[in-house]
């Protein structure tokens, strides 16, 4: 029995050998310390706010960094690194006075840090995916295109504590923009091996695809307001995360760092465990307005009006989403939030007949209609539901075509589709974040081939208007123009679904899709 003894023996040796020191269950934090454990579907794609593209890592950016402004727990933009802000009467120059603050290595945070960071982002050679968010700065677009030198960019440090920013045109949402991670400063010597940051938390350690540990940053200027001692981010599969939450090993699972499994939502809702936060995002179907039959306005109208959105949010997505009859979410300050009736089948039928008349064909001669979407559990369920709705309302068989997401986005970019699912989540809290999507045909986010001169004119006008009330009127009008032509069929306004421990309080869940743990604490 030598071989068996050998095998069993080596098995035990191996098991003894792989015992990695893990006696401290709390990952290096003391038992008495307040540590928050959060599930993440994947690690942040980078720790450099200039390189972040996805929504998921944004929460980590708000842990690690502090910008000029920060959104407080009531959703209001307030001063952060800026001690005071003033602007010129034409709203084209902003002066930020910085407070005394330190980087995690002890260096002072200066106005020059901002200048350098923003210049790198706009350097034509630097691969910053979000550079276009800076195009409101004077000369920013020209700088990125390499037409004028970097020094011409409308930002300068008058002294270490004074930052002067010049804009192309008055931008009423500029302070909201500055509070996003796009505008956060980066220390020039920060590398991914040794991250120098200035936010409420610092990165203590990381294990690839496994865990990230953050500790309270004692050098943070507002450190007395930070109550948590640490945050542990575990990289987990969605289903596994939910199980760990159920067994008490996690304090937070689901949005925005991961997703609750679609199948679990109904049962969580039933047990009163499901938490919901509104999202500044709209889901819709895009029409290709240059392809038959959706080059016909009445046809687009018929398809839009015959949807039963309430049915979809109630029985398909189930996550307390709100049905959408406009493209800008209702809490964005526009006065008109509904442009048509949901499930208006008679009106839809009338529009459908009119469309057939316009096209001089009968219903049976309609070209085959294909709905394309990126394969996901939720997308297929929605697609099946609307397929049925169109069949019942208009008597049309729509073919469903699901594909891998990269293939789908490639098809979208090539305008090789008739009807496709899609969504838009705002980058900052202003209606323009949605309306700009459809400003021009060439806009890579548009993809509907829809363009309207009046619409462009209104958006340009709104950019020059410095009175916020008047500006919102113009934007209202612009949305009216868009909704009259149905380049998209709005479906529902998104929501973020998550579960959390009951005694965790003070977390700010931004509708832009990130969490701010600055003021979080356990009430135990």
């Amino acid at each position: 029995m030598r071989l068996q003894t050998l095998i069993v023996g080596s098995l035990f040796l191996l098991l003894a050998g792989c015992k990695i020191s893990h006696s401290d269950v709390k990952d290096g934090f003391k038992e008495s310390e307040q540590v928050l454990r959060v599930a993440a579907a994947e690690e942040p794609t980078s720790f450099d706010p200039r390189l972040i593209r996805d929504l998921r890592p944004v929460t980590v950016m708000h842990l690690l960094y502090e910008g000029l402004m920060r959104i407080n727990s009531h959703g209001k933009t307030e001063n952060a690194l800026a001690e005071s802000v003033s602007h010129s009467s034409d709203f084209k120059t902003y002066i930020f006075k910085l407070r005394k603050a330190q980087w995690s290595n002890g260096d002072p945070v200066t106005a020059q840090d901002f200048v350098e960071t923003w210049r790198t982002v706009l350097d034509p050679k630097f691969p910053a995916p979000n550079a276009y968010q800076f195009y409101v700065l004077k000369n920013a677009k020209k700088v990125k295109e390499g037409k004028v030198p970097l020094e011409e960019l409308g930002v300068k440090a008058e002294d270490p504590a004074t930052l002067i920013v010049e804009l192309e045109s008055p931008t009423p949402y500029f302070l909201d923009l500055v509070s996003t991670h796009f505008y956060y400063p980066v220390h020039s010597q920060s590398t991914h091996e040794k991250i120098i940051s200035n936010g409420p938390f610092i990165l203590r350690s990381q294990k690839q695809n496994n865990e990230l540990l953050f500790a309270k940053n004692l050098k943070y200027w507002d450190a007395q307001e930070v109550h948590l001692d640490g945050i542990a981010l575990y990289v987990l599969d969605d289903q596994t995360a939910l199980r760990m939450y159920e067994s008490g090993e996690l304090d937070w699972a689901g949005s925005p760092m991961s997703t609750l499994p679609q199948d679990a939502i109904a049962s969580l809702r039933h047990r009163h465990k499901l938490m919901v936060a509104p999202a500044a995002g709209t889901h819709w179907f895009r029409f290709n307005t240059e392809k038959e039959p959706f080059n016909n306005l009445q046809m687009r109208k018929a398809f839009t009006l015959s949807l039963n959105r309430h049915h979809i949010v109630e029985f398909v997505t189930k996550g307390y989403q709100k049905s959408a009859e406009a493209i800008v979410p209702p809490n964005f300050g526009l006065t008109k939030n509904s442009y048509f009736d949901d499930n208006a089948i008679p009106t839809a039928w009338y529009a459908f007949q009119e469309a057939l008349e316009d096209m001089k064909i009968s219903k049976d001669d309609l070209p085959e209609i294909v709905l394309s979407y990126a394969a996901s559990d939720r997308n297929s369920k929605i697609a099946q539901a609307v397929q049925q709705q169109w069949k019942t309302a208009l008597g049309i068989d729509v073919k469903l075509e699901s594909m891998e997401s990269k293939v789908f986005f490639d098809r979208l970019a090539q305008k090789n589709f008739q009807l496709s699912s899609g969504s838009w989540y705002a980058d900052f809290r202003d209606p323009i974040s949605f309306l700009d999507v459809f400003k021009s045909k060439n806009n890579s986010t548009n993809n509907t081939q829809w363009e309207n001169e009046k619409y462009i004119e209104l958006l340009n006008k709104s950019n020059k208007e410095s009175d916020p009330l008047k500006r919102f009127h113009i934007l209202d009008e612009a949305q009216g123009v868009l909704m009259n032509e149905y380049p998209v069929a709005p479906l529902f306004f998104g929501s973020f679904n998550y579960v959390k421990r009951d005694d965790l309080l003070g977390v700010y869940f931004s509708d832009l899709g990130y969490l701010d743990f600055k003021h979080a604490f356990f009430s135990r």
Partner: protein
Amino acid sequence: MLSLAGKIRPYLCLMLSRLAALFLIVTLTFFLMKALPGDPFNQEQALPDQIHKILRHHYGLDDPWHQQYARYLKSVFSWNLGPSFRFQDRTVNQIIREGFPVSALLGIEALLIAVSLGIFLGTLGALRKGSWTDSLILIFASLSISFPSFLLGSFLQYFFGLKWGLFPIARWGTLMQSILPAFSLAALPCAFITRLMRTSLIEVLQQDYMRTARAKGLSEINVVWFHGMRNALLPLVSYLGPLSANILVGSFVIEKIYAIPGLGQWFVNSVLNRDYTVLMGLTVFYGLILLFIVLCMDLLYCWIDPRIGRAT
């Protein structure tokens, strides 16, 4: 008389043909990947064209294909596989360096379970052929083979982890955390080895030389162990080669369910993300591991059955 060179030559030929195969894999991966629609940067919130161009240029994706291919070959031969497109703070070398040991450790654990349990059950089944023990073993093996690993993994996690609290639900770091994933990973190969071992041993036990051994008066243990097992193990060895390579580089499903920070997940995710450098780096790495293990198996063959070595 064979000279040393003569002895080595077949191995050299073997090595060279394997290397050629590796080169073919490398090339094929490159062109298949280039043929895939989409690039690392296209997604729902599409980028402005100009920014998209800058990104493609920065990563050299707008160069002609032969330049990209040459650069890729160079990176493979210098084993400097470059940064990931998606996880920009990481290089592919780093991903392999940190992920492979985890997958390999879990893989070895699973292999040991599969091989020891499989050989034991297979032998037991063969020796008690037709008895109820044998039937039980066969039922177990059939069940394990037909039960997909994602179901088994989820099942074990739910009952042993969440319901009964006997093992941690997931994550990596302690011995206890590795037990459920190791068993989930071992189930299928274990069942396969059991059946393979059983069939092969039954066949060997009917051979003439077994009767001869018994006639010489050797004890039953001696007969089965030294004369039976050694010959019955041969088919197992050829199965073990690809199996070990497969298990050592990690399983997507098991690593996902149990949150194991191994290499398995990177294989699938890099394709979905069009993370070109990671995808190509991992393919080459997997090719190398497979080559190495198959070579080891060839040597093992010669040791178990010296006739094979002489024949080549």
